[in-house]
């Protein structure tokens, strides 16, 4: 374990955030920008120097700054340690690198916004939280960052708070994320109750415990995995918790690019890979991850096909691509000796996606910047002439996401498609119906992903053609205002576009060029490669099929949308109005959730308050009080006010008490009747005290004890 001052990596942006939020308004925009950018740049430099150390030897770096006890209660000992291994280093580089670029971009994009300093404060806060998430060496530390990024997402979605819709979107994001956090929190509790530790590094020594059967013949690892998965689906916007991400586009575009495309939403994938040893105990958990991922990918892609809001299309595309990553995480090959999964493909896709999706979002931002905030693609068109830089970079990113050779998306998407194709969740040679399913599930998922890839290519190029080709469909005045964005924005776009083209070459599979998979090698100390036996021929077969699917998607998009909405499109929409409406309205999932969860929750709340609380519980209390009052009203008539009646009552009461005590034998065994009858004989027995000399016996004998009570 090597020492490295890792704590500065998140602390720098956090300090920047504190400065921007507390003093930003006073010091002005220039200094705020400088502080925000420098803090991110500084932590980026630290990451770079740490990565250089990791390059030399894959031993994880640790940091003892936080490692004093953080929470110590009973047998729970938590230290807030940070660690950087090769997996988290990839995430760190993405977060600081793309984060820095987006900071630069935002300094241009947000230049005229009133909340400029607040924006940079939140953005830096996000960077800090995200880095804590990635660097945490145990689940609770990750959870700190996990909730922190959720908070920043909430703050930034609702950044323009005066619009009710933005605030609603932010709240929706936070609450849905909290459902995921609920899973993560319980996962921690469960893991601790099983193993007594929450550190990632100590997990491998507890696999035995995790493999023990818990309920219904399933191992504990399965339940743990499902709880983690709940957390991951919340953060990474997978079925059934994806609904918050499209709404999250209400935030400023740099936020969509940074948080809701490149970094935060991939946290679920990261955590799943981080905990991979627990998932491998019971590979069917991985199958569930893969199924969820594939379904989400296809589902979101089909919604994306008909959306009209520029950013909404990109949002659904993000959900869909995250589904790809989940399939990558879940594509396990189970042999009798080992379980391996395609984690490398997932993380590789995570990285390439970060580049091209950030590029796409920032391109969208540049377009909307040019059109004074207009985001409806039906009112765009022909922008290629007015926004040359934006157009070129957007095209490159589109080609990358569509998976065109040799751009980055091709390599990473192919890695995931190939992994899914090879996946085998039960060892070869075992029989039975469910085994048949487990053997062929990989093929099914592969086909789903292939369809999704075609879909992706189609809607991305639909977007591209509608925005940049054809004639401008807005008003003349809007046309007059169109201008290319400042250099701070286009420069960033070019950097990202170059990344979208180039980063794929880091992970060329070994079958294509021997030793070309630098990325896989880099991750090898953390996660093994998926143990697929793939030949170059197989690889190229799959690649050509995938390319064909993408080309088909692009071709269809060109045919239908090259010159704006073509007549065929209108004809199709008219021919199947119900299908069109159904898809356009996102399958009414939001409405469904609203009707099934949100509204019932309101009614239940209101019902509990009005009926249970106010009527039954408080009613019972008031009934008791009311009865007392009624009794008081009745008994009041006994109060005549005449002293004679009171005295008579008192005497009667005294007589009654006396009579009862005589009748019942008195209290404490003192018998009044007996006492009266023995009084006289006792008198005679007793010596007369007056005759005793005062020296021997005191006149008043001392009372023993300390008081009457005793």
């Amino acid at each position, binding site marked *: 374990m090597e020492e490295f001052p890792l704590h500065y990596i998140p602390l720098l942006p956090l300090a920047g955030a504190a400065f921007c*939020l507390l003093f930003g308004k006073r010091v002005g925009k220039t200094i705020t920008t400088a502080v925000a950018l420098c803090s991110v740049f500084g932590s980026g430099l630290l990451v770079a120097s740490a990565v250089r150390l990791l390059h030399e030897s894959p031993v994880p770096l640790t940091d003892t700054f936080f490692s*004093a*006890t*953080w*929470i*110590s*209660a*009973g*047998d*729970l000992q938590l230290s807030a340690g940070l660690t950087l291994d090769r997996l988290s280093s990839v995430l760190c580089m993405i977060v600081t690198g793309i984060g820095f670029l987006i900071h630069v971009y935002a300094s241009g994009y947000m230049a005229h916004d009133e909340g400029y300093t607040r924006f940079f404060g939140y953005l830096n806060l996000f960077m800090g939280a995200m880095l804590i998430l990635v660097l945490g060496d145990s689940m*609770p530390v990750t*959870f*700190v960052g996990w*909730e*922190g990024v959720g*908070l920043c997402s*909430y703050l930034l979605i*609702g950044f323009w*708070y*005066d*619009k*009710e819709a*933005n*605030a*609603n979107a*932010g*709240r929706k994001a*936070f*609450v849905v994320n*909290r*459902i995921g*956090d*609920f899973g993560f*929190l*319980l996962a*921690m*509790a*469960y893991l*601790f*109750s099983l193993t007594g530790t929450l550190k990632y590094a100590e997990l491998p020594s507890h696999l035995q415990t995790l493999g023990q059967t818990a309920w219904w013949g399933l191992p504990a690892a399965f339940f743990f995995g499902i709880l983690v998965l709940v957390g991951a689906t919340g953060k990474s916007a997978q079925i059934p918790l994806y609904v918050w991400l499209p709404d999250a586009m209400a935030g400023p575009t740099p936020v969509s690019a940074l948080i809701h495309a490149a970094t935060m939403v991939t946290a679920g994938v990261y955590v799943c890979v981080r905990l991979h040893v627990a998932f491998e105990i019971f590979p069917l958990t991985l199958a569930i991850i893969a199924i969820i991922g594939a379904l989400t990918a296809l589902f979101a892609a089909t919604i994306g096909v008909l959306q009209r809001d520029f950013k909404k299309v990109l949002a659904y595309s993000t959900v869909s691509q995250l589904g790809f990553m989940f399939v990558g995480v879940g594509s396990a090959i189970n042999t009798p000796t080992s379980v391996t999964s395609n984690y490398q493909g997932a993380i590789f896709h995570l990285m390439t996606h970060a580049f091209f999706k950030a590029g796409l979002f920032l391109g969208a931002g540049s377009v909307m910047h040019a059109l004074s905030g207009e985001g409806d693609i039906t009112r765009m068109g022909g922008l290629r002439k007015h926004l040359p830089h934006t157009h070129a970079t957007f095209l490159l990113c589109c080609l990358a996401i569509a998976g065109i050779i040799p751009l980055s998306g091709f390599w990473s998407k192919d890695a995931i498609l190939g992994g899914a194709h090879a996946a085998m969740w039960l060892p070869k040679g075992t029989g039975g119906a469910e085994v048949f399913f487990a053997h062929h599930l990989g093929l099914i998922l592969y086909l789903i992903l292939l369809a999704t890839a075609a879909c992706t290519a189609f809607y991305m190029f639909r977007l591209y053609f509608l925005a940049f080709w054809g004639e401008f469909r807005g008003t003349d005045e809007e046309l007059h205002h169109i201008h290319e964005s400042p250099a701070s924005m286009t420069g960033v776009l070019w950097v990202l576009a170059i990344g979208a083209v180039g980063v794929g070459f880091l992970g060329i599979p070994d079958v294509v060029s021997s030793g070309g998979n630098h990325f896989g090698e880099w991750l090898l100390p953390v996660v093994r490669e998926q143990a697929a036996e793939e030949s170059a021929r197989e690889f190229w077969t799959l690649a050509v099929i995938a390319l064909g699917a993408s080309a088909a998607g692009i071709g269809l998009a060109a045919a239908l949308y090259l010159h704006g909405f073509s007549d065929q499109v209108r004809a199709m929409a008219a021919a199947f109005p119900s299908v069109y409406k159904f898809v356009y309205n996102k399958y009414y999932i939001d409405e469904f959730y609203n009707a099934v969860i949100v509204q019932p*929750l*309101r009614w*239940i*709340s*209101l019902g*509990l*308050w*009005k009926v*249970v*609380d106010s009527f039954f*519980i*408080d009613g019972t*209390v008031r009934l008791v*009080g009311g009865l007392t009052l009624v009794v008081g009203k009745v008994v009041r008539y006994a109060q005549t006010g005449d002293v004679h009646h009171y005295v008579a009552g008192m005497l009667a009461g005294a007589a009654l008490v006396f009579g009862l005590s005589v009748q019942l034998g008195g209290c404490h065994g003192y018998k009044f009747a007996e006492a009266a009858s023995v009084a006289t004989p006792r008198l005679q027995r007793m010596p007369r005290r007056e005759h005793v000399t005062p020296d021997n016996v005191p006149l008043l004998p001392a009372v023993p004890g*300390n*008081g*009457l*009570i*005793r």
Partner: protein
Amino acid sequence: MILPLITFLPLVGALLLMLIPREEESILRGTALFFTLATFVISLGLLPDFDGANFSHVIDWTWIEALGVHFHLGVDGISLWLVLLTTFLMPIVLFSTGTSITKKVREFAIAMLVLESGMIGTFLALDLFVFYVFWEIMLIPMYFIIGIWGGDRRVYASIKFVLYTMVGSLLMLVAIIYIYVRHHDASNTWTFDYFTLSRVVLSTREQMYCFLAFGLAFAIKVPLFPFHTWLPDAHVEAPTAGSVILAAVLLKFGTYGLLRFAMPFFPRAMVEMAPYLAIASVIGIVYGSLVAFAQTDIKKMIAYSSVAHLGFVVLGLSMWNAKAIDGAVYQMLAHGISTGGLFLAIGVIYERRHTRRLEEFGGLMAVMPRYTAVFMIITLASVGLPGLSGFVGEFLVLVGTFGAYKTWPHGGPIFYAHPKILAVVAATGVILSAVYMLYLFQKMFFGPLSNPRNRGLKDLSNRELAVFAPMLLMAFWLGLYPSTFLSAIDPAVRRTIAEFQHKVMIKVPEGEKARLMPEGGGPEPVKHKEELDDKF
């Protein structure tokens, strides 16, 4: 000597205030503030050379010899932070009332000081008689604070508060006297001493009755579902200062009492009743959150959220392991800071607008950015965001509950009360708290500034900011560096559990005299619930 000093210094202050003419309002306020501040500073003296596991700074004076009453005070890791919370909040609250309380300033200050004495005394008492006396003393000033300086329905609310509390505390008095007499039967000495009486072992049935009597008093104070309906009324009608103290400190007496008295005195009953306590607290978590969501009055919303938060505390206490109980004690502190802060914050807006109706607000962020930031941080502390006060307690309670014993004892247990299921249901409170708190936050601060009466609102003054600054500091401290607090809480909790585990093994047949557990522990302690079931 420090303990009687901090207990009676506020009372001395109250006496002094009686000598100052009622017209001298600024002198009155200053004097009261001075005494609370002095109490706080002196109470900080508890921290050095503090022995976490055992009682420190103990004083033991004979008070009423004939009855065996000793004026016996002591502080351990459980009560330490609660005492400090009290002394910490008191000056803040008094300072914040500078503009909100204008009628009968002298009486108000006196009531607050007497209340402080009562609260500190209750936390410190190691003699059941003294405990009961302080417990009742603190009721009286609170009654006046709600009843005189409260809102429109203040009389109703204050009477409800007092009657509710009295019902429980009278039963508790009966139970105290019962155990006092039973101890005399067994040992032939009269004493109310905490340590002596905590070694008395009653038969299981007697324990059940006494536990119910104690438990009712504490459950009402907590307040545990379904004994909570006094709380919304009391909170809504109380003035800001009253609400803050009520939420931040008074509610803790219920859970503190369960941990300090009910659990160690009646361990068998505690084991039998734990499932029911746990179920009630989990219902309270979900129910309180849901009902809070339906509220339109801001204060009522926070009041119901207290029901949910305190549900976590009782859940932790009923789980009988160090993590959960540590978490419960921690949650008490965190709730004191976050909910106290929320009530203070609501007081600020109430002073400006004289309404607490949620629909009156909206878009306040545009005119009150400082206030928004403060409110946001406290809100996040309340919903348990890691890094702020609320998280650690909830986390520990959940981890402790999830890892609690596999089954409940036979007889009481029902399937639904499996600790893991309880933990899952309780964890939904994490979601629900975000639902209602963010709803509240959005309705107040986001959206358009549509109500014209909100346009001219002034942001927090520096004076008000000074009120909130220490609260925010504590919210961050509790969230970021829990070791400060847990290092004192944990040893005391472990000691309590160890004694509990010794004592629960002693069984006294029905109808026999109570037994006295030998000093330094009884039979071999049990670690797991299953062992216990085997032995009985």
